[in-house]
């Protein structure tokens, strides 16, 4: 989960503990049962009856499978891709046979055609595995592209040149502050230019944000005020890198720079049970004379969150009368020791 590496077999297998993956499995299986019912029924009136009959057998199999796969997830991901596929198919066979057997006992009805049901179970399993394989292949180039985009869109050239300018201004009068600023810049660019496909601890991202904001504060002085609420943040939570930093860059660009008055950017990170919440707020003026560029960053971040967490992560942006708020929710996945 933590690593999405193109050549490893593990990436072709979905993360069975992800809510999005589970939903996809259940939705696809249900859709297939509907298709089967349509094929089997001669007219609309018998359709529902047919479907109930099919779903009564198929749904328990699907639900048991989802539960079992999510339990076996870490173990499956350690296997070679081929052995994992064979294991899953065998497991499905067993589940199907068991459900058919117990189903027959409970419903007290004879199972008509076991061979056919087993054939369908294997076919559907292989179809789903193939689907996730293709989906992962389709998404992994997007991931490397996201990295490229990260480089291109992340840092505004405007920020880079203004920061260099600010550091230059310090060299004569305050060489020590200039040193710190250059170190911050080096760290920032090290992360920007790194391979950012892997998840990293939240702690690192927050540190990066601090360095970034220190540079901004250098140029903006008292105009930029930062309100940190991160005492209760789960430091070990994993997240894609460069999610908060570009959002803070937006906050400074749209919320602080257009005004001569001091403004507050607030960062609030906490977790509720197994979800991590990150809330960023900045002042916002509707008549502000710069716009654009913002949507691109949000789209890019949303995409990367979806690549890593599927449906379990969300990003919401809200524009108030005088405030702009971005709220990110991700599942609390701990870094391994």
């Amino acid at each position, binding site marked *: 989960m933590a690593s999405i590496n193109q050549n490893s077999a593990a990436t072709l297998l979905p993360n069975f503990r992800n809510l999005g993956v589970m939903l996809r499995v259940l939705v696809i299986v249900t859709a297939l049962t509907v298709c089967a019912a349509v094929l089997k029924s001669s007219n609309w009136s018998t359709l529902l009856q047919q479907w109930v009959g099919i779903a009564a057998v198929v749904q328990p199999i699907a639900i048991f499978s989802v539960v079992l796969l999510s339990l076996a997830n870490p173990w499956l991901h350690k296997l070679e891709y081929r052995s994992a596929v064979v294991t899953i198919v065998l497991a499905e066979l067993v589940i199907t046979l068991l459900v058919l057997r117990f189903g027959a006992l409970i419903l007290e009805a004879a199972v008509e055609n076991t061979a056919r049901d087993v054939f369908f179970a294997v076919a559907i399993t292989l179809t789903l595995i193939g689907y996730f394989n293709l989906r992962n292949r389709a998404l992994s180039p997007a991931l490397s592209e996201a990295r490229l985009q990260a480089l291109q869109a992340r840092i505004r050239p*405007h920020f880079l040149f203004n920061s260099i300018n*600010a550091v230059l201004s310090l060299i004569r009068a305050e060489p020590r502050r200039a040193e710190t600023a250059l170190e911050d810049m080096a760290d920032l660019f090290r992360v920007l230019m790194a391979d950012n496909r892997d998840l990293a601890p939240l702690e690192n991202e927050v540190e990066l944000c601090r360095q970034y904001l220190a540079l901004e504060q250098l140029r903006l002085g008292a105009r930029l005020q930062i309100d940190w609420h991160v005492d209760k943040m789960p430091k070990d939570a994993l997240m894609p890198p460069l999610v908060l930093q570009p959002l803070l860059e937006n906050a400074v660009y749209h919320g602080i*720079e257009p005004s001569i008055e001091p403004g507050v950017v607030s960062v609030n990170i906490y977790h509720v049970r197994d979800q991590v919440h990150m809330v960023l707020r900045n002042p916002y003026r509707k008549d502000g004379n710069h716009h654009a560029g913002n949507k691109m960053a949000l789209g890019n971040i949303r995409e990367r969150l979806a690549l890593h967490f599927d449906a379990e992560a969300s990003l919401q942006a809200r524009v108030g009368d005088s405030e702009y708020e971005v709220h990110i929710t991700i599942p609390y996945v701990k870094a391994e020791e």
Partner: protein
Amino acid sequence: MTKHPHALKVVIADDEAPARSRVRDLLEDCASSFPIELVGEAGSGRELLALLGNTPADVVLLDIRMPEMDGLEAAQHLLRLPEPPSIIFTTAYDDHALKAFELHAVDYLVKPIRLRRLHDALTRARSITPLRLDILQRVAPEPRTHLSVQERGKIMLIAVTDIRYLRAELKYVTVRTAAREHLVEESLSRLEQEFSEQFVRIHRSCLVAKAHIIGFERDVLEAGESRWTVMLNGLDEKLPVSRRQQHIVKEFGRNLP
């Protein structure tokens, strides 16, 4: 930077304090080859205009991106001064403006500024023909936020959002706000172009602010004729709508909530 009778008087306008101090350092370096006097610093376009109202300057080093009036707008007001200073724009990164500057030979320096470049620009500043207003207007992408008038040697700003109507007189345009009237030396058709979003023409010689229209009234004239007049928020005056522009009355009705 000693006081010298023929020193080049320079003003720095930039919203970032470190950027200003950097230019200050560089000016000091330049001062070794010709006399320079730093006469003031400003943190926004507004501050700059206030400063130049009472302090004459030869050269303004003007940052483009600033809060409270950007450099491009501030320059447009500066050029209306009787003796406008030479303007050298400075910017860290601004693709669009720079292309336009290249095209129209407007002087600019990219930040971080090199000593050599600043030196050359300042040496040139006195000799080259000053920036022309019409070129600057073409370069500036956004309409101004203010109009400016000179009163007793000072630059007075009128917020465009305060303006109720603009009316062409012989040589001037009357600018009417809720409080008073000003005369500006501009052309009504240029103003109409620039502020086409905010203003609408009701008459050959009159533009009114869309946001301040509170209603229209039918006025009966002698001989049984009648005409539409427009009522503006905060003014008693009613302005006639010409026959050709009567469609705006309908459009206004349609846009009501």
